[in-house]
């Protein structure tokens, strides 16, 4: 059984489908999950369910945007300096240990 935090993560990532998605969005619409973003809801008019739901949608967009920016900033696969020396160092350490797996 997922907690509400876990369901929210899956909703943001588009991982909820079908009945599970419908049930979760009904709960979002009802205000039942407002406790998940009290920091935002605290600024809304109490009982304004439309505004509450809109804030969840906005929060989802913001999360996805931040994810995009993280990817743009960090999603690089970089070789270590001197890649050949990197491999060579590993092999030298392994040979020095003399710790070879048993031949099968």
């Amino acid at each position, binding site marked *: 059984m997922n907690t509400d935090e876990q369901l929210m993560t899956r909703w943001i990532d588009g991982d909820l489908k079908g009945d599970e998605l419908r049930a979760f969005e009904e709960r979002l619409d009802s205000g039942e999950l407002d406790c998940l973003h009290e920091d935002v809801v605290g600024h809304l008019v109490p009982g304004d369910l439309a505004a509450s739901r809109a804030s969840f949608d906005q929060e989802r967009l913001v999360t996805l945007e931040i994810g995009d920016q993280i990817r743009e900033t960090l999603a690089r696969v970089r070789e*270590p300096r001197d890649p050949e020396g990197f491999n060579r160092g590993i092999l030298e350490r392994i040979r020095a240990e003399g710790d070879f797996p048993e031949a099968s």
Partner: protein
Amino acid sequence: MASNEDTKVPVPSETAEDKAAIRERDAELVRRAQAGELEAFDELVTHYRAAVYSMIVNMIRNDADAWDLAQDVFVKAWRALPGFEARAGFYTWLYRITHNATYDWLRKKKVRGDVEFDDGVALDAEAGSVTAPREAATPDAKMEHRELGDRIEEAIAALSDDHRQVILLKEVEGLSYQEMADAIGCSIGTIMSRLFYARKSLQHMLKDLHPCP
């Protein structure tokens, strides 16, 4: 030698066919390495050194330590290779070793109180980036982009180790919840909860850039 070179390594975002071919290739290399063939292990190192090194650099933010730690990871992998069973795939298994080694490193550094982030680590999007710039940017746009990148890096560095790890695995490595759980060695539920709170923290730290209603 250039410190950052464009490279192409198997990452989880590749197609199912690519993954299947990579899995098959790895299985063969692992089988040969388990039989004591060091050349096969050397080939595995070549395939995965950039992925392991990049993950460690993003976690510990220190180029020289990341180089040493990435080497340790592969030596540990060699020692553990006889016990490796191909159920999870070599990539996921290697990530788990990387995760454990990185956490051990961070823990020891914290005990000694000497964690330092190396601002000199080259994170320039134009050097060593697989993600090519979309278009030529104006100097102002470049500056703005650079500042945004700095803010993102600062925010990620300020996360707890657990939260930083899940954000990097999800957003940068593109792993599924299950792959993350396998790599870290915890339940999927824990992964999803950590992601929830990590994202909340990031939103809070970056709220001036991304105002919520």
